[in-house]
């Protein structure tokens, strides 16, 4: 057991015993791999783990506990997601106890039937510049070095997005795992005929991903939840990263870094407002 893990359990026990929080959302180990867990009793804290397989962002669960005080294990990207969501009125800072864990990157998941067994660091973690959550109530430092494995990088244009999107099953795992997809009804799911039909049409997959990419632009914190959940491994974060870069260049905005800075689509400069 690593020392951050010991520290995490100690903290969680403390928080729950002193009733600082009603529950702690963290990761536990199971036969099916590392998965989210919801610790309500101090006795359960020994379940908590912290390792490079803790990849699914826990932030999306926060909205389910709106009235409760929740402790959450947050990587750098998760913290950034919380920042953005607070700005979008989806979360209340005072109900969240952020247990920031210093993150050295997570492993790319090895999925069913993979021919590869070697563990690799996820590509989006390499681009990550924020290893610790920008807002936090407690910081657990890492005692390990960053994961070494490097993946050759490519330009976003190099990918054949059309054929990548064609693989998409529209299973919605990207949408459902994303901390930012909090719409009560996704644009592409309603009953009425809309831009994207409910049943998968190969052409509309492209529309779906473009709609999603545009909704993510300037918001995505590149936590990689979508990409790691994707059954056909569409490198979605690469696409969103590119859009984020555009935002950074044009508006100087990097999502999730500070609570004060309003997202560019919400700000009208002098004379810009019609």
């Amino acid at each position, binding site marked *: 057991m690593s020392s951050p893990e010991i520290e995490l359990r100690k903290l969680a026990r403390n928080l729950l015993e002193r009733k600082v929080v009603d529950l702690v959302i963290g990761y536990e180990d199971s036969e099916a791999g590392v998965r989210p867990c919801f610790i309500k009793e101090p006795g359960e804290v020994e379940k908590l783990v912290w390792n490079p397989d803790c990849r699914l962002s826990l932030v999306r669960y926060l909205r389910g506990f709106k009235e409760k005080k929740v402790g959450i294990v947050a990587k750098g990207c998760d913290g950034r997601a919380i920042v953005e969501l607070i700005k979008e009125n*989806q979360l209340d800072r005072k109900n969240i106890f952020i247990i920031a864990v210093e993150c050295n990157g997570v492993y790319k998941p090895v999925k069913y039937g993979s021919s590869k067994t070697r563990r690799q660091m996820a590509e989006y973690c390499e681009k990550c510049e924020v290893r610790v959550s920008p807002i936090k109530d407690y910081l657990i430092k890492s005692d390990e070095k960053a994961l070494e494995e490097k993946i050759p990088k490519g330009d976003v244009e190099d990918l054949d997005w059309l054929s990548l999107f064609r693989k998409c099953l529209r299973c919605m795992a990207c949408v459902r795992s994303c901390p930012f997809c909090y*719409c*009560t*009804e996704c644009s592409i799911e309603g009953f009425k005929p*809309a*831009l994207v039909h409910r049943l998968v049409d190969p052409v509309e997959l492209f529309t779906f991903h473009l709609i999603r990419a545009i*909704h993510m632009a300037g918001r995505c914190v590149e936590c990689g939840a979508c990409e790691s959940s994707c059954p056909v491994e569409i490198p979605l974060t690469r696409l969103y990263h590119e859009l984020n870069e555009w935002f950074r260049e044009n508006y100087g905005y990097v999502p999730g870094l500070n609570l004060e800075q309003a997202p560019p*689509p919400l700000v*009208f400069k002098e004379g810009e*407002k019609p």
Partner: protein
Amino acid sequence: MRRVTVLLCTCGSTLLEKIDFNKVSKELYKNPLVKKIEIVDGLCKANTVKSLSLDANERIIAAACSSRLLEAVLKNLSNAKVIEFVNIREQCAWVCDDKEDASSKTIRLLNGSINRAVRSNPPQYSDGLKIVREAMVIGGGIAGVRCALDIANAGYRVYLIEKEPSIGGIMAQLDKTFPTLDCSICIEGPLLSEAGRNKNITIIPNSEVVGVKGRVGDFRVLVKVNPTYVDPEKCNGCGECANVCPVYQPNKYDVDLKPVKAIYCPFAQAVPLKYVINKEYCIECGLCMSVCTRAAINLEDKPKMLELNVGAIVVAVGSDLFDPRLKPEYHYGEYDNVITNMEFERIICASGPTGGVLLRKDGKPAKRVAFIQCVGSRESGPGIGECSYYCCAASMKEARLILEHDKDAKVFIFYNELRAFGKGWEDLLYRRCLEDGIVFIRSRPSEIKRSPNGNLIVVYEDTLTGKRSELEVDMVVLALGFKPSENLAKLAATLGVSVDDQGFIEEAHSKAKPLETRVRGIYVAGTCHGPRDIVESAVEGSAAAALVISLFRSGNVKLPETAVVLESKCTGCGRCMPVCQYDAIVRDGEKVRVLESLCNGCGACISSCPQEAIVLGDWGIEQLALQISGMLGD
């Protein structure tokens, strides 16, 4: 299942040669949503429409010319609530090269509209909303005063908001008006005092509009009244206070040329004729308080906020003049005798600082005077790009005033294009000027130099002869162009009206709706929407008044459909709120809600909502997506 009737208009057979109507109707008839197709030769004719015997509940696609004309005709004659218009004349027949292209474009556009019409619902108007039959006029210049008087005389209350202590505007500062050289204040003065006396007009001087809420017929305007430190209810304008005041200040009315006391009345004909204190200069010695028999002075005066409920607003705030310092080659503010035309007006005015004698700063009379036109207009520099309208006539008028005062004076006018297009301008101004020996030089002088004796030397190239030369004069008058006033952008933003690329207020339509803005119930008059002269400003004041009166007489207003937030879908992310320029979206618990009275149905919020939680009539993703897919043909 709704199905549609398609009316194909051949436009009196003129479209036959560009559109293959048989092919179009054959193709369209494949579409299962089409109930019937009628080819007619003039949908704009009452007989044609009547012969179609359309049902009021029918969904109709009118493929013809512009909906501008047809909408009224079809809606009146058929009572149909859902009509989609497809302009196959301008958009297909006239722009496509060959018949095949035009026909296939027609088919595509129609297929899109068929899809749309099937999903459309009859529009819902909220009828009979209340109208507050009181108006607000912002700005007390000639346009505003004229407008306020006309509305008041029709029997409606008017609030006249003026930022200065007195109404009057630029016209009150002028000496004479062109082309007839009548005394300016003698014309405006009676109007001002009439406005002051009119029981229906409430003049609120020293005030500005800081907030507007509501919609046409029911605006709630927040007005900030700045302190004047003299209670206007008590002040009777006797002037004792000014007599004892020990401090002088430059007077804005006299373009800072003639100092007045810190407690002052801007000019003799001011309305209201009340004294005010300029706190920047006041030393709070209290002398005025000691002499004021009515105890009108209160040095502790604070700004007041008023909320006025009005049904219509007329913006007549006027404009500012170009700042000549931005043209360093003319050395305004640096060389003593380079003056602006507004300064000239005050100097030449009998009640002005020199008692009407054209004197230089050094006290010598100005015998040789040059006018430079188009300073800050018709240029790509710091001024406005277009002609400033009034200045050719004004300079000619001023040139003639010089000669009226001093027959021996020599006047030169440096012009670019002399524009004397108004009534009497050619005869009363231009020809007289020529007869009087005023020299017109076609040139935009490149520089003004100062000679050792204090005279000015205008450096120019005559563009008619191509000759470069220099002209020595005693005085140079710069004919300044208009520019949008300093606070116009802020006011426009407060009101929700738009400004054009020059910064003037933008009309709803420059020709069809020249005095309406894009906010229903807010009208515009005078130079705040572009350069004008006095006549035109007054005309617009009256015209705007007519619009206000017709709104008040109409009984009720029909409001557009308003946006509706679907509560079940709204996540309260708030992205719609900054987008709404009418501030019609407010937070309601964790979600947002649209204030129906404020919403103008512009639809900006809809596009900002990531999950289509805001709907506005038939402009939803459903209709648009289907229209697009119909056009694309899948």
